[in-house]
């Protein structure tokens, strides 16, 4: 990484407490334009909390967050979205009684480009196609299967034409064929110029997709680096020993 290229997203000593629980502590890392950064860590490590901090669901207690050089700390989600930051949810959040296309139109309308309705509809159509929901675009969101809803999350986020896409376990709950398809979609999205920060439990997928990986444990950064480096990091192995299956997966990838 050259020193003069400003990072797309910079976390600067970010911290968040819930009552007595320190969910995220003194966390700093950068995401560079065009990369896929994987975020891993055991359950409860603070990964989803971090997403919520980045896109403004709640403000951090300490530290600052910069996006494209702009300080977005404490901005509400709808402002963060305008800067070009879109996300998917681990627990899907469809607009249930609206069609797939309408869901995506909302994303396009109120996303980075703040498009008028008719223009937004075209963008939404493209996003629906990329996510592979073309045949279901007139269905109500609530009629979709879980895999369909995951795709909808992705399509809706894409329709916002974000600079940075936060993916929260988009592969969880999908069968192997669906996972393979989704990995292809994610690669294509990156190739189209979108930077991606993703949380994933499927080690195999994240290790092959990510350019770099950040490991969280108890809200703190445990390690950061290329997948191969991280997987051999002794502390990472130790943190995952509580989860032997994941540790085995990590070792397998080293």
């Amino acid at each position, binding site marked *: 990484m050259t020193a003069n290229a400003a990072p797309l997203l910079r976390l600067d000593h970010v911290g968040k407490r819930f009552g007595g629980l320190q969910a995220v502590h003194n966390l700093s890392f950068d995401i560079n334009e065009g990369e896929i950064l994987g975020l891993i860590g055991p359950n409860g490590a603070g990964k989803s909390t971090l997403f919520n901090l980045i896109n403004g*669901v709640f403000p951090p207690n300490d530290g600052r967050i910069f996006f494209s050089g702009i300080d977005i700390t404490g901005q509400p989600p*709808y402002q963060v979205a305008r800067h070009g930051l879109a996300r998917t949810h681990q627990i899907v*959040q469809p*607009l249930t009684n609206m069609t797939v296309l309408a869901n995506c139109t909302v994303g396009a309308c*109120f996303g980075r480009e703040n498009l008028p309705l008719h223009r937004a509809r075209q963008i939404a159509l493209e996003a629906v196609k990329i996510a592979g929901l073309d045949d279901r675009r007139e269905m109500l969101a609530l009629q979709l299967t879980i895999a369909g809803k995951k795709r909808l999350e992705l399509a809706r986020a894409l329709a916002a034409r974000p600079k940075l896409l936060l993916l929260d376990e988009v592969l969880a709950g999908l069968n192997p064929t669906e996972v393979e398809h989704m990995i292809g979609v994610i690669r294509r999205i990156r190739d189209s110029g979108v930077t991606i920060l993703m949380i994933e439990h499927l080690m195999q997928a994240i290790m092959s997709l990510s350019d770099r990986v950040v490991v969280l444990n108890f809200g703190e950064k445990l390690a950061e680096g290329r997948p191969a480096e991280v997987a051999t990091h002794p502390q990472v192995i130790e943190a995952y020993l509580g989860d032997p299956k994941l540790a085995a997966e990590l070792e397998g990838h080293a």
Partner: protein
Amino acid sequence: MVRRPFFWIIALVIAVFAALPAIGNNVEMRESLVLACVYITLASNLNLMLGYAGYINFGSIVFFGLGGYICVWLVYAHNWPLLPSLLAAGFGVSALALIFGLGILRLRGHFFALATIGIVEGVQAFAENFSPWGGSSGIYISPAVFKPFGGAAEALWVIYFAMVAVMGASLYLSYGIKSSKFGLGLLAIGQNEDAAAILGVPTPFYKALVYCISAFLPAITGGLYFFKSAFIQPSDAFDLTLSTEAIVICMLGGQGTVTGVALGAFLYEELRGYLLTSPTFADFQLTIAGVLLLIIVLFFPSGLMGFIYSRFPRTQKVLE
């Protein structure tokens, strides 16, 4: 919008409302349609909150009552002519709604609904104590105010046409918002407010704006209604029953639809008129409204339009 058939359906409804009683000078029909206009106006504007943004407002009557009070008071105490009084009512109440809205719209779901009940009761208690508005005995205006219209009979017709115009404006407003980006944002809020905000919908601003907009036309219709009766008092102006009825109407017709709510208002008004004149049912108006609401909520949550859409799917292309 002008090219869509629904635009002309609304125009047709307005024309029929204006023409039917005027042909043959049918005063009795006009008085029944006055109430239909009030119900359609109130329910359509409530629908912007309830059906689009998904917020239950038990206080829609406050807009109507306050509009009535401001208008009647300006005519009575300051000798203002009707038109500026109406505009003052509309803009005044909208401004108040914006101020209230910025506060109470921070509340979600249940809490918003409760706060709106608090506002009705608070405003009514205020009006009962506010001496410039005549306290609990209210304000009478002298029939002399009808003179500029060429007499009381003529004035009543002018007011009726104005009310039809306000009703028409309400329908166009509902339709216009529904087919706009603003409307899309509101519907998203109604489905899942958190998700909407994350998608970039400026939720606090949109909610305050729709609350403010939904106050304007009901306030004007309130002004017209109480000017027409030449009398206003707190128990009429802030009758929680009318708020209730507006909610029943939205559910009956199908919340979030323009046609359904208008149709529901019309049917409800006709039913109510029939019940009130029938000796057996006159006392049971509320009970029947309650049973109706319960049946709809339990078994037909998408209301009349849900039924029509599922039976005649093609109507979805024409009706909104």
